[in-house]
């Protein structure tokens, strides 16, 4: 538990800000719609935001009690420094970026078989998963299987 105290500190601040914004928004919903507060669209969200605010304060109090404000900020800065230099985090970011590329750029714009082929060949190539020939073969089998099962057998449209 103590390993992530600096995360808890930052998270608690984020939760407190988020819940305060939600409380204001929920009150605005009640004003917009009118009528009693408990029947407004913001009632439930306000209750939940208050619960989140309480949890945020509890988390903040605990993180400060365990580490103090200064140490938490220092630990968080150190973590950012380590994260930026660590190979595993760079690989994770690279992997995430390729998944984002497929999700937001390739899949919405190209037909399924083209976008998925590009994605799979690219990601397995970058991660040195296997030889290029095997890479292409695996991609062809996967794309062909998914296309065959969904599009041809079940007649399900693909992205």
């Amino acid at each position, binding site marked *: *538990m103590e390993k*992530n105290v600096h*995360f*808890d500190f930052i*998270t608690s601040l984020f*939760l407190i800000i988020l819940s305060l914004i*939600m409380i204001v*928004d929920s009150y605005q*919903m009640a004003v*917009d*719609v009118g009528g009693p507060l*408990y*029947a*407004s*669209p*913001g*009632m*439930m*969200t306000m*209750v*939940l*935001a208050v*619960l*989140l605010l309480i*949890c*945020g304060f*509890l*988390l903040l109090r*605990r993180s400060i009690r365990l580490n103090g404000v200064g140490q938490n900020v220092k630990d968080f800065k150190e973590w950012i420094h380590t994260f930026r230099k660590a190979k*595993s985090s760079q*690989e*994770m970011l690279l*992997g*995430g970026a390729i*998944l984002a590329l*497929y*999700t*937001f750029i390739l*899949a*919405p714009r190209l037909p*399924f078989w083209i976008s*998925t082929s590009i*994605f*799979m060949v690219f*990601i*397995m190539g970058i*991660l*040195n*998963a*296997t030889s290029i020939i095997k890479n292409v073969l*695996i991609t062809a089998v*996967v794309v062909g299987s*998914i296309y065959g099962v*969904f599009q041809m057998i*079940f*007649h*399900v*449209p*693909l*992205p």
Partner: protein
Amino acid sequence: MEWQYIYGVISFVLEPTSLFVMAISVFFGLVVGMLPGLTATMAVALLTGLTYRLAPEMAILSLVAVYIGAISGGCQSAILINIPGTPASAATAVDGFPIAQRGEGGLGIFLATTASFFGTLAGTLCVLLLTPPLALLALKFGASEFFLLALFGVMICGQLTAGTDPLKGWISGIIGLIVAQIGLDGMNAYPRFSFGMVDLMAGVPLIPVMIGLFGFPEIVYGLVTSTARAQIKSSALEFKRGFGILMKNKLNMVRSSIIGVIIGIIPGVGEDVAGWLSYWAEKNSSKTPEKFGKGAYEGVVAAETGNNACIGGAIIPVLSLAVPGSAPAAVLLAALWLHGLRPGPLLMSETPGFVYTMSIYMTISAFTMIILGLLLSKVTVRILAVKSTILMPVVYVLCTVGAFVIDNSIFDIYLVFVFGLIGLLLREMSYPAAPFLLGIILGPMATIICAGRLFCQMVILPRSSPARSV
């Protein structure tokens, strides 16, 4: 009438197409279950999207089969390489791996698979016996009880899944409840937190969220840890000796089944806790506790019976209260809704035969699981040798397809990614994802009407009505 219904369901399950779909689903579950990092929750979530276009009966049969297959499949990697395929099999590895090290891997797999089979059947029996009375009790619930039930479900799930830090579980659950509030409000059609996006006005769809929450972090971690696993060797299954050991463990299996079912009924606890508790109970009652951890057959039998009995236990509150007992059961609940069924108190009056349907699906899936699990154990473990850098891109493509086919909406694929990032953050910061998902599932139950009525009953009426206070 009931017998006619049961006969109809059995006829449906024994049709060649149904048997084929069930066999494929169990096999898929076994494979996902044995692959470290891919959980039963992810298997059910992935298949929920992929089976969306199937007929509801076929889709639910497939989901139940994959659930049972995935929980059972985890034991194979736990025994053969000391890496539990799912958290549910963690307790199995403690004694299973030493058994394999002694050159009795086949015997270990036989014991684990057969104990899983027994546990699943015991859980099924409890589904039949306990669901109707629990549903009748739930019929007496009013709006405020349901609001409190939703809140209780999320809080207890947060408490139990967050290990030593329940506060994080509660935060995760509350955020899930908040996400469930996104979209048009039911009373005034007011768009809550939709930021002017039409896609969000209908609310956040459940399937892309759960695929993202549970699948995305596994995929990203799988891409980072690209190590290939060693080829596995498994010895002969030793049926005769295995049956002899199981006969000596009758009491162990009954006790573990009871523990598994009870743990399953508690919202959000899940199969992993059931496995550990059953193991612990057997160790404590054993005359030779010093053998545990060194390859005791009793340990494997207890853990596998307990975690599989938990499946039935987790399904009981799904059917009777619409509150899932574990994370995979939460996904199963979502899938039932998706296919037009309404689990909950009205289940016994609207579709009284569904409890039998579910029980028959579970029973026949259990038989399929034991047959496939034993027959294919030597083949399926070879999949463990596939590098995660090859496997994970395939899994991500299946995740996007699964999310897309529900509404044919590209927006759902975006949601997989966004909630995947949230899932990754939750895991990095040691927040459990199960309460988050449970919050989204139970959020609609805790609607503004419930909150409003609760407010009236608890705050306004006691002050204004003397009759009520009397």
